């Protein structure tokens, strides 16, 4: 709203100029949801014969108690003092339709992005069943007023093996998964963040991780409620990882991407009678050339990507690299139970 400008104080013992009273009544009406169960005030610029018993002063006191946090509200708004300043911060444009997030007192405005725009951000490579779940999450969150989707410049949707290498090169401290080890390669993972949300002043925010929201006055603790609500629509068909707040995947959080890379490689190596399995916590993979042969440690996913294969002959190395590269396509369709 336009800034609430007062020429004098309003309320008990105030100057109570009619124009000022009307401005206060308008401002209080703009945050009347916060003062429930009080009804909207008449915007007539009048406090009646006894201001102390007027509905406007009752609303001022309710505002001071509930929003300003005064233990003993005095029912007076003095120019540029605490209640006046807080009213300026809290009041919203009259034409904004404020929403209150379920189970909280956080208020905001419905996103201007359409649900179709949000859904259009999903990568084409997403598997159908998983995509249906994610579309439903987007639709439900959109009903609540939030535009969720996939950020296009953040490799938040489908990733090629090369993308995974780039992510790790850019920040080695960021990604723990090597090429082939992330469910982003399988069309089974998206980083589903907030493309847009609008605060209770009507300001739109592009705040994908809701990091800025956490630092905004009046919105502390809101982001965790939003993420929890998003997760509630996943109904055990999309799963979040404990430490990756925005990541959702179509397989349980305990599923190992390394096990599935080995399975994809084994699928690629079937014709050559090559089998693969993941090694221990050192992130290396093992290969068995024939059924009766013993397992040989061949290196990490990153090493295989770079063409480094250990403990094998030159001919075996060629085949292993071929299987590793072929596993990128197999990952897109392999049946993960």
């Amino acid at each position: 709203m336009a800034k609430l400008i007062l020429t004098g104080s309003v309320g008990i013992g105030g100057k109570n100029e009619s124009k000022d009273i009307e401005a206060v009544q308008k401002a209080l009406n703009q945050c009347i949801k916060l003062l429930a169960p009080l009804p909207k005030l008449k915007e007539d610029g009048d406090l009646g014969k006894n201001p102390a018993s007027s509905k406007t002063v009752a609303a001022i006191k309710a505002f001071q108690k509930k929003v300003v946090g005064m233990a003993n509200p005095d029912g007076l708004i003095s120019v540029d003092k605490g209640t006046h300043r807080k009213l300026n911060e809290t009041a919203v444009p009259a034409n904004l339709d404020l929403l209150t997030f379920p189970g909280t007192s956080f208020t905001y405005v419905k996103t201007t992005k359409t649900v179709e725009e949000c859904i259009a951000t999903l990568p084409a490579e997403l598997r159908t069943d998983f995509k249906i779940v994610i579309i439903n999450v987007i639709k439900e969150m959109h009903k609540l007023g939030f535009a969720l989707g996939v950020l296009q410049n953040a490799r938040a949707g489908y990733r090629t093996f090369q993308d995974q290498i780039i992510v790790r090169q850019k920040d080695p401290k960021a990604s723990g998964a090597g090429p082939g080890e992330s469910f982003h390669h399988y069309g089974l993972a998206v980083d589903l963040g907030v493309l847009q949300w609008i605060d209770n002043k009507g300001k739109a925010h592009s705040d994908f991780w809701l990091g800025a929201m956490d630092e905004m006055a009046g919105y502390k603790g809101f982001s965790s409620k939003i993420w929890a609500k998003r997760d509630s629509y996943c109904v055990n068909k999309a799963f979040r990882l404990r430490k990756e707040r925005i990541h959702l995947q179509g397989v349980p959080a305990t599923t190992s991407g390394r096990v599935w890379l080995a399975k994809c490689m084994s699928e690629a190596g079937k014709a050559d009678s090559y089998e693969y399995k993941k090694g221990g916590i050192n992130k290396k993979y093992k290969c068995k050339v024939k059924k009766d042969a013993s397992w040989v440690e061949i290196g990490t996913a990153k090493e295989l990507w770079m063409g480094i294969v250990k403990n094998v002959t030159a001919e075996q190395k060629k085949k292993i690299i071929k299987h590793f590269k072929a596993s990128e396509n197999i990952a897109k369709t392999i049946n993960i139970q």
Partner: protein
Amino acid sequence: MKKLTILFFCFMAVINVSYGEDKVAIGEANKKVKAIDDARDDLYQLEIKQHVEVSEGVPPSVVFFYKPEREELVLVEFSAGHEIFSVVYKYYFENKKIIKYSKEILNRPDNPPKRAIIYGSDGSVLWKNTINEPVISVKNILEIYSLNMRLIQDASKY
């Protein structure tokens, strides 16, 4: 009126002195922080690191940097990877007292600013931007360090 004017100037003088003192103290704190950063490679380290099978991001780790003599803790660094970006928290110490705390989010496309709190020698906050307190309290950090050092020492007995 004259008295009021004198009082006003005295008040402003106190404010200026106090502001000047803070500025000097902040400068001193930043110098100490730089000295710790410069000496980083020469410091001993105690590291707690998680090794997990399933992870899109790099699991969190914490490194306690300490001076070899008297095992004085000077820097604690937490880091955690989140697929495409990482978060690093740092605590700088001198004589078991916090000098500076910082939180940095690296490589996130929205490029959030670095947050920090600079403390005075009495533990008061001299300067801060957007954060009010460290992710883990300073008291807990010191306790965790001392417990882990004890654990390491006890484990080395034979």
